[in-house]
């Protein structure tokens, strides 16, 4: 079954249409990357799937069920998002414990204490971080908390919006390893936005290159590794990375 299906998806912010006619199918268990320059609409697609950009037309299906335009509890249980900036995405006045418990409270899930403990373990954070505030954590630790929060509802799909671009290379390696391990352990599906092609090569199976709100090419990672992208724009991106 496919985890995410997008059909003829157009997304606008007010009068400006930013994504034009995107068709995409991500099977369950796959790790799929969206790459492209700023403003190409890749983050907007994630936001539409998560319900943060409600002005869309076309079809978004999550695990076979079409998504409505409204806030959808079933979708949130299955699809969670991790944002780019670990400094901006955690509430500064809430402890890690309350940030992690909140999704459970919203969805009326009990056994919170144990679940928080377990998820901290999964993302490799010591229990002593549980009652700290975000400002007492480093960037990498905060990103682990953000990932933990996304895992709280045991989703099937993770939407990752540049999860490592605000981090140092050595911390980036830790987070990438973590994501890879979590995907293996929990059979997660990833839809990841990035402009770092080496990260795609490490973590993903397929990628779509986007430009000006359209997908210009969908390729296998094997093609990326061998530098065999077809479209001229994809080649440009590849050249910019390889130098």
């Amino acid at each position, binding site marked *: 079954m496919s985890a995410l299906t997008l059909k003829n998806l157009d997304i606008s912010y007010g009068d400006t249409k930013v994504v034009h006619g995107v068709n995409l199918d991500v099977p369950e268990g796959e790790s799929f990357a969206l790459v492209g*320059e700023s403003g190409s609409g890749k983050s907007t697609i994630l936001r539409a799937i998560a319900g943060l950009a409600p002005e869309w037309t076309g079809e978004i299906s999550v695990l076979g069920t079409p998504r409505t335009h409204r806030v959808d509890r079933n979708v949130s249980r299955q699809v969670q998002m991790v944002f780019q900036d670990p400094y901006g995405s955690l509430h500064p006045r809430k402890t890690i414990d309350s940030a992690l418990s909140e999704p459970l409270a919203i969805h009326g899930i009990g056994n919170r204490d144990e679940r928080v403990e377990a998820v901290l373990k999964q993302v490799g954070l010591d229990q002593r971080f549980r009652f700290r505030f975000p400002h007492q954590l480093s960037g990498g630790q905060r990103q682990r908390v953000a990932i933990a929060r996304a895992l709280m509802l045991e989703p099937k799909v993770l939407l990752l919006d540049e999860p490592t671009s605000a981090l*140092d290379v*050595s911390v980036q390696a*830790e987070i990438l390893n973590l994501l*890879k391990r979590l995907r293996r352990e929990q059979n997660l599906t990833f839809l990841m936005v990035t402009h770092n092609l*080496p990260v795609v090569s490490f973590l993903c199976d397929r990628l779509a290159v986007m430009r000006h709100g359209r997908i210009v090419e969908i390729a296998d990672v094997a093609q990326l*590794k061998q530098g065999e992208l077809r479209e001229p724009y994809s080649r440009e991106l590849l050249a910019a990375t390889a*130098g």
Partner: protein
Amino acid sequence: MSAPLLEVENLRVSFPTHSGRVEVVKGLSFTLGRERLGIVGESGSGKSMTGRSILKLIRKPGEVTADKLHFDGIDILDQSEKQMRAIRGARISMVMQDPKFSLNPVMTVGQQIAEALVTHQKLGRKEVQQRILDMLTAVRINDPERVAKLYPHEVSGGMGQRVMIAMMLIPEPELLIADEPTSALDVSVQAQVLDIIDDLVTRKGMGLILISHDLALVSRYCDRILVMNSGQVVEECAAGQLDQAQHPYTRGLLAAMPVLNETRDELPVLDRTQWAGT
């Protein structure tokens, strides 16, 4: 190499905390000629503080000491604020990380570049205008007359960074400090911006200090590299020989970067206890 442009010996920067002063730069020494030097390190390694202390931009309660901090024979630590103002911008200038926060939002691009120029030189209005347009052309902005009239929010990140470079280079400084000049930019634009800096620096025979956390990028654009970790230089090498780096920290950083043709199942991670770093 000619006489050194910048000589730094035993540079120390410290800040007070509840538990006494903490040194963020611990005894850094290097000399710089008219060449391109890269300073690489992770967050908190003291690389930006090094850049700022050369311009004497560290405010109280921060404290800078050095056995020697000479720029072209001038003792930077001895200069008064007034004397420093004649050096900053005119002889040493600095490109900051994010054009969004470093440009003045209520002045047009042209006015800001003009300000950088007329602060240090007395020139006629026509000449200033001409220099601005030349400079914007030099940083490869296609329609300089139009762009000069725009406000910072009307230009893209890459263009904003080029505007900043134009502003920093227009008084023709001898030393340019670029602190993470491209980390706020897209990959596709990064190379363009660095090419421009590289081209201008080589053409005018300036010294360049490129501060970045990106080893690959620094090795591509510099002659020499200093690798910093928790306030100290752990390794110094020629840019071409980065792959033969010896120090475990440098090797760790190199290994932690995923490559385009990635075959490793897991990326090696730095063992932080080894250096007691950040």
